């Protein structure tokens, strides 16, 4: 019984981390069709921002939940203005430029902070389920994922900004005719996506190894998940990260982590083959 509970918790946690990591990419890719290959480096920047802030004496929660998204969101704003705005509608050029950007960020971070970084302790302690112990932080991650989902959903679904943003993504020319400046919306959306990614990096910082190249572990998986999820940001990412997280964690528990990864990738291929428009393209049409 307690074993089942702990496995379930792990599976949910795996899905929640994946969701957190993918949400920002889904916003940027889903709404602007920009493949941000620097996504992993945005995660890394979020983690660095949180760790540096925490080591400078700022409260750990504020560092993770406020400083990290703020810093990366601002960074995203700068990147959008200086680089990405020239690349809308140019899928491949955007890949090339963001790949360059990712190398640049890694190089800059290494030059400034060196190859290793003093991490922060994991806040909250552990608790026991029967014979098993796990950390409260796992539940915290889950809560953050749920919170982010609610916030992004609410913003896109119920606010004026969300309505305009969705309209611009559907038909920028029509939106422009109606008096909206698409450039501003793109800028805000990219920055929002970066901030969400930064938050993911911030909350993962206490349970990860912090190095300049840590981002590369995330980018491929996040990309696969977002495409597997399809066009709808929340329902697509949620269903895909739920499915892949479930498969990966279960595979890792019952076989080895190596096969866990291979099973994840195989199922992603099969999924895209069966549902070329992603999960949400088939089951959640018209949702956010």
């Amino acid at each position, binding site marked *: 019984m307690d074993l089942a509970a702990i496995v379930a918790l792990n599976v949910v946690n795996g899905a929640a981390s994946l969701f957190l990591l993918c949400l920002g990419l889904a916003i940027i890719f889903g709404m602007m069709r920009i493949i941000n290959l620097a996504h992993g480096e945005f995660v890394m920047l979020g983690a660095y921002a949180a760790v540096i802030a925490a080591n400078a004496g700022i409260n750990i929660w504020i560092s993770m939940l406020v400083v990290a998204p703020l810093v990366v969101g601002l960074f995203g704003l700068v990147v959008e203005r200086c680089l990405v705005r020239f*690349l809308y509608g140019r899928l491949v050029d955007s890949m*090339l430029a963001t*790949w360059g950007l990712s190398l*640049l960020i890694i190089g800059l971070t*290494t030059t400034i902070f060196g190859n290793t970084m003093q991490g922060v302790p994991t806040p909250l302690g552990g608790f026991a389920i029967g014979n098993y112990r796990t950390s409260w932080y796992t539940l915290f991650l889950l809560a953050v994922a749920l919170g982010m989902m609610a916030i992004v959903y609410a913003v896109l679904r119920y606010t004026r900004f969300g309505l305009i943003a969705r309209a611009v993504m559907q038909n920028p020319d029509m939106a422009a005719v109606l008096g909206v400046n698409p450039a501003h919306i793109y800028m805000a959306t990219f920055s929002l996506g970066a901030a969400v990614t930064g938050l993911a990096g911030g909350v993962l910082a206490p349970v990860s190894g912090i190095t300049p190249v840590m981002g590369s572990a995330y980018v491929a998986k996040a990309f696969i998940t977002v495409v597997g999820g399809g066009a709808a940001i929340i329902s697509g990412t949620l269903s895909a990260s739920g499915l892949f997280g479930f498969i990966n964690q279960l595979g890792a528990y019952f076989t080895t982590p190596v096969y866990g990864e291979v099973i994840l*990738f195989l199922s992603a291929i099969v999924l895209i083959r069966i549902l070329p428009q992603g999960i949400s393209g088939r089951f959640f049409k018209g949702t956010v």
Partner: protein
Amino acid sequence: MSDTVKLSAQIAAVLVACIVVAVMPLYADLFQLMQFTLFASMAVLALSLGFIWGFGGILCFGQTAFFGLGAYAYAVAAINYGDSTPAILCAVIVPALFALALGYFVFYGRISDVYLGVITLTVTLILFNVFNSTAGDEYTIGTARLGGFNGMPAVPTFNMPFDPTAILYPEDSWYVTGGALIAIYVGLRLLLRSRFGRVAIAVRENETRAALLGYDPRVVKLWVFVLGGAIAGMGGALYVNWGAFVGPTIFALSLSAEIIIWICIGGLGTLIGPIVGCFLIQYLVSQIGSQQSFNSNLVLGAILIVFVLLLPQGLVPTLRNLVAAGWYRVSERRRETGHGQSRQMTAGQPVGAE
């Protein structure tokens, strides 16, 4: 530019390339020669993706899958047979069969665009994981140990056909690699001028239109993909011949991305562009590592960003447009001076079929 001018320019370029390959060993020292051998083998890989992406419209993020499979197939076969001749054949056939299976899976599922990219990328990641976990004696094919992350060192290099004792010297390797590159380039050019090539371009331009005209886009794309896989596999064999080594990092994401970068920088929709981009970036990366003042990632990243902002079309198309603009001006002037001869219209020409 008229078709004849283009054709003669291409023939001239091939001739020049042949001469360069032939006389290179007289002027370059051994190290440079080996470096160019490497670049040429990578250029074969670039050419394979440049072909399927630029002329088949297939955006494959995982071209390294075929490159790596070719390299491993070559290494395993060469160790087992002790003769590179059947090994080179294996290096072409194994990736081609793999591309056939994968291509059937995706094209007959009508998967295209970025979804295709994700599937190919994922396949590469799987291969990386699988080959990475092959350390230990149980992963042995014939007498060849796959060796996991450490890879397979000291793979036999090319020898004269069917004569394993006559191992090729670096000059010969250069001739083989440079010659293969030129031969593949010419072969692809001829293919593109053939009926199949024109149909492939028609499919790239508009699948529905091509289908309505009675061509099956799935079949066309599948064969383009298989051919690309075979060429990439050949590149893999040439690569192993250069370094006598193959390891799973050949499947790594960074190399997959690098090929795309070569093509973007050289110019998509051309065949010469990927080759130019490949030589340029490879040279650049190896130069960056020789300096100690800046972090290598920093320099390379900055160069890529500047490039995409300033030369979005890539080198070869930009140069070609410059030349074309000059040509236009010349012919305009000629018309003004009354020597007749209207400018050749390029409308009948399939886009990108030059």
